[in-house]
């Protein structure tokens, strides 16, 4: 997998929204100069707090939003600004699973109707074989007996079962890439593992690539091959999952890890304030500088570039070398 070509290539992605700040029209940048790649069959976990821009990236990749700057290439096709027909065509390649399985299904349609829609829309099967395809999809996501499930309405299913329907619907077009935006955070604890395992299975069976958006580092480590940490719309750190947990370099990653339940770190959190990041266009310096215990004037003036510290381990911090030494000492 290591040397295979990237399926998803994102370069210098910027998403900006107009806002009114003190009755002056200006812009915020929830996503600012973000670049990354996802290979076929790879799971990239995107971790960050609410407002960090992770869902906005997910929406931009699915072209629910149009990027302001930068480019997104999926399967050798530039989809950054495609429209209409091409966009419909693109949805055969990439699909999305949403956080809320109660809101993402239509309450007055049966499960069968939910799955038949994409199949018809994209003419993926003849009308005779549509039914078989629906059965296959339902069996795939573990919603058996399929004959019973097909005729049910969403309200007759539990949260976990509904999320399985949402996954089956995404699979209907036989995509190569899925964006899963917090797919387990609204589910009961006993159900979450089943959904994570199902997604892992699908990744293996179909060589599916995932952008797995989550705020939970533990599940990111479980499901993700790599983890990318986002703060204030910028990437702070990226590396292989276990490496990131074992050897976090960026101060924000360390803060997140310290705060996660089950972490070995006790005592005060390594932060100097709890101010939310400034997303206004034209901000200077590192978005985390206001909260960072290591911040200097340099950090407030200059944006640190995302640079490779070790093979596959990228960090955006002016003081990565010094911080890496801490890791060795502790």
């Amino acid at each position: 997998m290591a040397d295979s070509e990237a399926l998803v290539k994102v370069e210098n992605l910027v998403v900006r929204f107009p806002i009114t700040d003190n009755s002056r029209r200006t812009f915020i940048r929830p996503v600012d100069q973000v670049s990354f790649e996802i290979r076929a069959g790879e799971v990239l976990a995107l971790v960050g707090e609410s407002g960090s821009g992770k869902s906005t990236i997910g929406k931009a990749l699915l072209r629910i939003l149009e990027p302001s700057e930068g480019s997104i290439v999926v399967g050798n096709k530039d989809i950054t600004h495609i429209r209409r027909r091409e966009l419909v065509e693109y949805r055969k390649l990439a699909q999305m699973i949403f956080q809320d399985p109660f809101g993402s299904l239509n309450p007055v349609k049966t499960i069968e109707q939910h799955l038949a829609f994409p199949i018809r829309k994209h003419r993926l099967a003849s009308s005779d074989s549509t039914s078989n395809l629906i059965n296959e999809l339902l069996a795939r996501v573990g919603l058996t007996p399929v004959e019973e499930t097909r005729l049910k309405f969403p309200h007759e299913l539990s949260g976990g079962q509904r999320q399985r329907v949402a996954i089956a619907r995404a699979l209907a077009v036989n995509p190569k890439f899925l964006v899963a935006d917090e797919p387990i955070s609204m589910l009961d604890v006993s159900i979450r593992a089943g959904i994570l395992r199902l997604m892992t299975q699908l990744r293996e069976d179909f060589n599916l690539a995932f952008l797995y958006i989550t705020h939970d580092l533990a599940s990111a480590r479980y499901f993700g091959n790599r983890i990318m940490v986002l703060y204030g719309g910028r990437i702070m750190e990226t590396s292989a999952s276990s490496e990131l947990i074992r050897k976090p370099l960026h101060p924000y990653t360390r803060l997140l890890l310290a705060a996660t339940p089950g972490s070995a770190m006790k005592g005060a959190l390594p932060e100097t304030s709890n101010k939310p990041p400034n997303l206004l266009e034209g901000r200077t310096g590192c978005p985390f500088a206001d909260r960072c215990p290591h911040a200097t004037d340099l950090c407030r003036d200059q944006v640190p570039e995302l640079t490779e510290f070790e093979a596959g381990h990228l960090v955006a911090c002016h003081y990565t070398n010094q911080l890496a030494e801490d890791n060795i000492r502790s």
Partner: protein
Amino acid sequence: MDEKTPVLEIKDLSVSYQTPSGFVEAVRGVNLTLYPEEIIGLVGESGSGKSTMAFAVMRLLKGEATVTGGLIKVLGKDVYSLNKKELRLFRWDQMAMVFQSAMSALNPVMTVEKQIFDTILSHRPQMSRQEVRTRAEELMDMVRIDRKHLKSFPHELSGGMRQRIVIAIAIALHPKMVIMDEPTTALDVVVQRSILNQIKEIQKTEKFSILFISHDFSLVAEMATRVAIMYAGRIVEMTDSQTLKLGERHHPYTDGLLRAIPQLTSEDVVIEGISGNPPDLKLLPSGCAFHPRCALAMERCKTEMPIPHPQPIGYIECHLYSEEGSRG
């Protein structure tokens, strides 16, 4: 610990909801004792009855929900024997609650100051404005929010700050017991951690007991000394956080939950869900309510409801731990 008067004593509590299709028991014969300065964690999935139990303790059940049996004593007083006026004074003075949604717990058109003042003055009408102001400022310091935000409206504050205000209001009158129902669920991990650290600090200085309700095992294990695990309206296991971390000798449901959570640091990254779904309370399985999802279920689990079997710490309500059971 037994010689102390418990802060909260729940005996054989049952709560039912009236639905068009008949009564549904959401809490089924629950026993729980909370001692002074103790933190008990109550873990369960949605629909397990944990919030219903909390509302029953606060006597806040409304409409279709009623207590159908059992006894709730707070500081030795039967909560349901109080008349309206007594209850109004008792609630918040002795027992308070932090609700899950801070936005709906606060009044959007009142400043923070006014809400704290109202709470204090309705219970301590004799206090002077200056005394109340001093207390309000003290509370703000305690939850580490700048005093200037006393003049703020809830919408001007972040989610974390709002939840801190709700906690400040809950402890305003020095209650002996605070029920916290998923106090940090809607918050980011960093904010969550800093609020939990503060709760622990304040609890140590103010010396109240906490019934800490959450669906998150690792959180509860860090906060609480003893942990109660609830399933389908019953506490199926009572243990302590140490035993929980070791992962030995648990109810099959607890075992299942422990295996279902990806661990942050352990090398063992295999997780496994519990098959099936949490039961529909209207169609509760016979015998042990967990038996249809339990890999270790025996014939008797289908018909006979298990009784609590005492363990070195706490108890487990499962036939495996009976004298004839394999783990007994």
